[in-house]
């Protein structure tokens, strides 16, 4: 099947504190998004998951895309002019951010903010755009859309603002929706409502979703496939069930183990942890970036970079435990 979005060896750099040492936020990322799938990109803060999302929209200022290629609906995104790119943004690729209140214009009625996108991309008249905005507010299940369209962002709760963001993102019927931590700022009972809406819209509109999140609970219930990022790289990719049942990369295993919901309460009340912390993005360690924290590291890990391998046709993992003859027997293998 042809990919809707294909990233090949994508590299994104941001200026660091020290001009000579840029932050390599994304450092050689390749992945394919298939039509109508929900793909979750997970990892800790600073792993490059949001930078990847922004790179797809070419919105990385003050950083820049320093390498790789991006194909969306068969077009090479990096070869498009800024004008052509504007036609892709909003119209073909919609985005929902974590902070809806920061993304909405505080002095503009929400109906007008939705209509704005429709007038630009679909060239609707003022009246038609407003009518469509009201309809979209109904689609995202805002009660009394006629009245709410006239509201200003501060009159809405966090959950309602996130619904408005979705209405804007979906206004021009994009094929890809990027959802960057869409429910992180919401309370759990509201999060459940917003995620339910996302699942419904996905089904009805046959949307492809790139879900960026650090919440593995949200991933487990809402993604078909998962990519795990660590320090700018994809360390593992698998169908969601397989990832949670038999994580292959030691980082994925550590990440899953540290979740309170996945471990039994013990008498000493301690949670399993990963030692150490994520590396400095301006000076990542040589070899495998995870090796200083890896409980299973052995000889090659500190000196060479691991290559990707495919333990099964649907999975990818970048770890010497899967490629080195000396490593294959060492792996603690599928574990929970």
């Amino acid at each position: 099947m042809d990919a809707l979005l294909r990233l090949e060896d994508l590299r994104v750099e941001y200026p660091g504190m020290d001009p000579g040492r840029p932050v390599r936020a994304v450092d050689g990322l390749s992945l394919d998004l298939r039509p109508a799938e929900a793909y979750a990109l997970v990892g800790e803060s600073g792993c490059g998951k949001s930078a990847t999302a922004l790179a797809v929209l070419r919105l990385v200022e003050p950083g820049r895309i320093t390498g790789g290629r991006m194909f969306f609906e068969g077009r090479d995104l990096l070869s498009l002019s800024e004008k052509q790119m504007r036609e892709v943004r909003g119209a073909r690729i919609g985005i929902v951010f974590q902070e809806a209140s920061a993304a909405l214009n505080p002095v503009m009625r929400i109906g007008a903010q939705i209509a704005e996108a429709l007038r630009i991309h679909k060239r609707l008249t003022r009246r038609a755009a407003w009518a469509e905005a009201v309809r979209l507010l109904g689609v995202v299940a805002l009660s009394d859309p006629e009245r709410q369209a006239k509201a200003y962002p501060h009159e809405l709760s966090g959950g309602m603002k996130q619904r408005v963001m979705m209405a804007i993102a979906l206004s021009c019927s994009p094929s890809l929706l990027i959802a960057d931590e869409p429910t992180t700022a919401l309370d759990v009972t509201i999060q459940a409502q917003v995620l339910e809406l996302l699942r419904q819209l996905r089904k009805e509109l046959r949307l492809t979703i790139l879900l960026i999140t650090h919440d593995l609970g949200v991933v487990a219930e809402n993604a078909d496939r998962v990519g795990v990022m660590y320090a700018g790289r994809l360390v593992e990719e698998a169908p969601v069930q397989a990832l949670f049942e038999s994580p292959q990369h030691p980082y994925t295993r550590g990440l899953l183990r540290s979740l309170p919901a996945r471990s039994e309460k013990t008498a000493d009340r301690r949670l399993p942890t990963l030692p150490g912390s994520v590396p400095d993005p301006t000076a990542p360690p040589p070899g495998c970036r995870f090796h200083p924290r890896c409980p299973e590291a052995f000889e090659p890990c500190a000196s060479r970079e691991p290559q990707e391998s495919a333990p099964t046709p649907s999975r990818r993992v970048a770890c010497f435990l899967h490629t080195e003859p000396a490593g294959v027997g060492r792996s603690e293998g599928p574990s929970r």
Partner: protein
Amino acid sequence: MTRSLVEATGLRKTFARSGVWSSKGPAVQAVNGVDLQVHPGETLGLVGESGSGKSTLGRLLLRLIEPDAGALRYDDVDLLACAPGKLRKLRRHFQIIFQDPYGSLNPRMKIGSAIGEPLTIHKLVRNREERKDRVADLLRQVGLDPSAVSRYPHEFSGGQRQRIGIARAIACAPRFIVADEPVSALDAPVQAQIINLLVELQEKLGLAYLFIAHDLRLVKHICDRVAVMYLGRIVESAPADALYSNPRHPYTQALLASTPNPEPGPPTPPQLFGEPASPTRPPAGCTFHPRCPVAEPGCSRQNPRLMETEPGHKVACHLVNPPAE
């Protein structure tokens, strides 16, 4: 029953909203009649959604803000009747850890001074030499290198800053710490490290924690007891195991069922519709009744009292404790 270390009775706090344009907006009823005891050396989890009043309650217990009504006792002292001078001396016994340690650390103050300051204020060290040793010792206790003393807050990661916040909170050997969402801003692996540090310090120093959180799953691991708040009131409190195995209040049940499970499977359907009512105009009767999936007509008339259903397990719900007509 052991004697409580902190005991609050009927605490109330209303914030008058002064608008920019109008002279006075509607008042926010943040904490609306709360009874709470914290026992020495225990961890009491306080859970609820944004706006439920849990942070306000935490601050009230430390008398960082003044309650409008109610009583507050720490050990044998009536905290609300306490003279300012005496209160200041007592303060070293109860401390707070914030969600955002960066916001609570002076960006121009080196870590050594930030942690050492309370030691000087409470005269717990005799000279600079002693203070330096004590600060180095505190940094080691929270898992940081003593060389951190000469660095500034911005040089540390979120997890490290939280360790600094913890070092400062334990500097004066307190007995009670309000931990207000101490790990909510951190990624899971860092969360686990900080949780383990808090547990370790509790064992070593005999601390009691009020652990404020919105993640019920996290609280389960470290709490002896858990209290659930909704719109300024405690709706259920119980020993942790009992609360998770047998949640009685419909709101607690919904909270538990709404948290997505990190196991692939059918998605969690929304448990509740609508959003919490505004704390400026809490609904009549049980404040949860407009969202409650099992509400009965009587629920909108009378406010349910928090009543014991089993030893240590209290619930404020008319369906669990039918009101006497």
